[in-house]
């Protein structure tokens, strides 16, 4: 056999991936891009007409849908903030505060397993817990904290926020844990040896290096939360309408172009958040690391 007939062995056959990417664009990318087109169409007698206009966007802003968007963003931002408050110290403890490998693996598994469990099953139970005659109200009354049952515990913004914290906690912890875990212990020791207080080390060494993780955490928590349909439906009880329910009702009344416009508004907000987060994190990383040599003795 002549050497010239031999193919370089590691050369990979690209046929499979090309076919996959073509079907992927047909099934995923084109439909998503198509939302943009839909949002500029006008609806006439429940049928889209090829008459490009901003009508659908005007309707999004004119009808109550704008309030829904603002409420969704407000709740999602608040819960994301709460997740940061809970997850940042926890991730720090998990990556640097404990040396017990078995405990670490157990905690990481405990954070991962619920992700694959049915969200509706985990959410329904809050109804029994938070209801007027539920255990939480009972315990509060029995201990004399309150006189009558609290009616804002369930089917309120409170219950939606409480219900969102659990399911979206792991998506904040994991990126933070991974980025803090990558920080070399010796770098932290060096910082201490050079006379930095732990607070200084946290602010000028850990936080800048953990910022990519924080950014990823914000994106992976905030973005899917905007579109969550299970928690607001089950725990909002019709009082807390969020974007997903709004889009669903639009599709039910066949108002396709406004549904598309609302989706595009959502997508743009998300792209905006992603851009801001990545810009801020690059800026912080560069400014902190350039400031570091000047302030270290």
């Amino acid at each position, binding site marked *: 056999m002549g050497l010239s007939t031999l193919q370089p*062995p*590691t050369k*990979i056959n*690209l046929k*499979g*991936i090309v076919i*996959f*990417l073509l079907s992927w664009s047909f*099934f*995923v990318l084109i*439909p998503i891009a*198509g*939302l943009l087109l839909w949002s500029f169409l006008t609806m006439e007698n429940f049928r889209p007409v090829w008459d490009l206009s901003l009508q659908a966007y005007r309707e999004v802003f004119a009808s109550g849908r704008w309030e829904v968007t603002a409420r969704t963003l407000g709740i999602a931002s608040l819960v994301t903030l709460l997740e940061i*408050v809970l997850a940042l*110290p*926890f*991730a720090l*403890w998990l990556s640097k*505060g404990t040396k017990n490998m078995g405990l670490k*693996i157990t905690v990481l598994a*405990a*954070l*991962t397993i619920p992700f*694959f*469990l*049915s*969200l*509706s*099953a*985990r959410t*329904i*139970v*809050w109804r*029994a*817990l938070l*209801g007027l005659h*539920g*255990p939480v109200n009972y315990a509060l009354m029995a201990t004399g904290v309150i006189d009558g049952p609290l009616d804002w515990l369930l089917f309120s913004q409170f219950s939606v926020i409480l219900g969102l*914290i*659990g399911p979206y*906690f*792991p998506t904040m912890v994991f990126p933070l844990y991974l980025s803090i875990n990558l920080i070399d212990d010796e770098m932290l020791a060096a910082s201490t040896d050079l006379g930095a*207080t*732990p*607070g200084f080390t946290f602010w000028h060494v850990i936080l800048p290096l953990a910022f990519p993780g924080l950014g990823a955490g914000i994106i992976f928590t905030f*973005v*899917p939360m905007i*579109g*969550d*349909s*299970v928690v607001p*439906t089950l725990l909002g009880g019709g009082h807390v309408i969020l974007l*997903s329910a709004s889009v*669903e009702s639009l*599709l039910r009344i066949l108002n*396709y172009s406004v549904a*598309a416009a609302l989706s595009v508004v*959502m*997508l743009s907000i*998300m792209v905006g958040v992603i851009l801001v987060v990545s810009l801020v994190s690059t800026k912080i990383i560069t400014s902190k690391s350039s400031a570091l040599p000047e302030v270290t003795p």
Partner: protein
Amino acid sequence: MSNLPTKVYTATWSEHPVWKNLGLSLGIVALLLIYIPIFWLVLMSFTGDPLSGFPGNFTTKWYFSLGEHRNWLQPLFVSLAIASGVSLVSMVCATIVGRTVSRLRRKAMAVTVLAVTLLPLAIPGVIIGTALFLYFRVLLGFKMGVWSLCIGHFVWAFPFALLAVLVVALRFDPRLLDSAADLGAGPFERFWTIEFPLLKDGVIAGGLFAFLLSFNEIARSIYLKGRTETLPVYIWQQAASHSSHVVLIYSLNVLILIASTLLVGFAFRLLFGKNTQ
């Protein structure tokens, strides 16, 4: 506090042990918010009157009445069929994409392929559901059904399967294939006897993840189901409608939770178990 023996170097407030405990306690709070509902769900499934919210009157009757009211069987079979199909296709596609991406010479190309294929991770289910609905139902005029659920679930599950395959594919040493080729193995033999056995665990784990993600999917299913009912949608509708069957949902969910937990545990052992041995 002032009675605590203080070491010389813990002069600053930021070194106080309270911070270490704070991190741990905040994590415990969050884990409780995750696990209290799961624990309560199990408790309620054995409770005589679960709608009261209080445990007590422990009984297994709800599990037995699941056998009498079999409305959930049909949705269960639909969900199982869809999840198996999605899982199988995800495994094949994730293997193709994963092994190719990890060996692409041009980094920019690999990053582009990954960005495009992992995109659905960053898009809420509502938007994907709406986009697919408008595209297939309204634009192309297809009737929604099992096939559209499969597509929607695949779009959601595939990125996770790909990530699982990448975990093992990035560890794979392509020089093994060079040696196999030198020894005269053909392309298929190289793949089947050398590469696939090493990728297998990641592929199976990815398949299990895809199965579970499809099996529990709601957000996209609402838009894509047509008249088909999957189990999570059935449970969700029962729960949202305050129907009398809502008590059965607890026991049904517990059974699903147990099965899912076992599958996740198995997948994790395949993916990461060998590193710790």
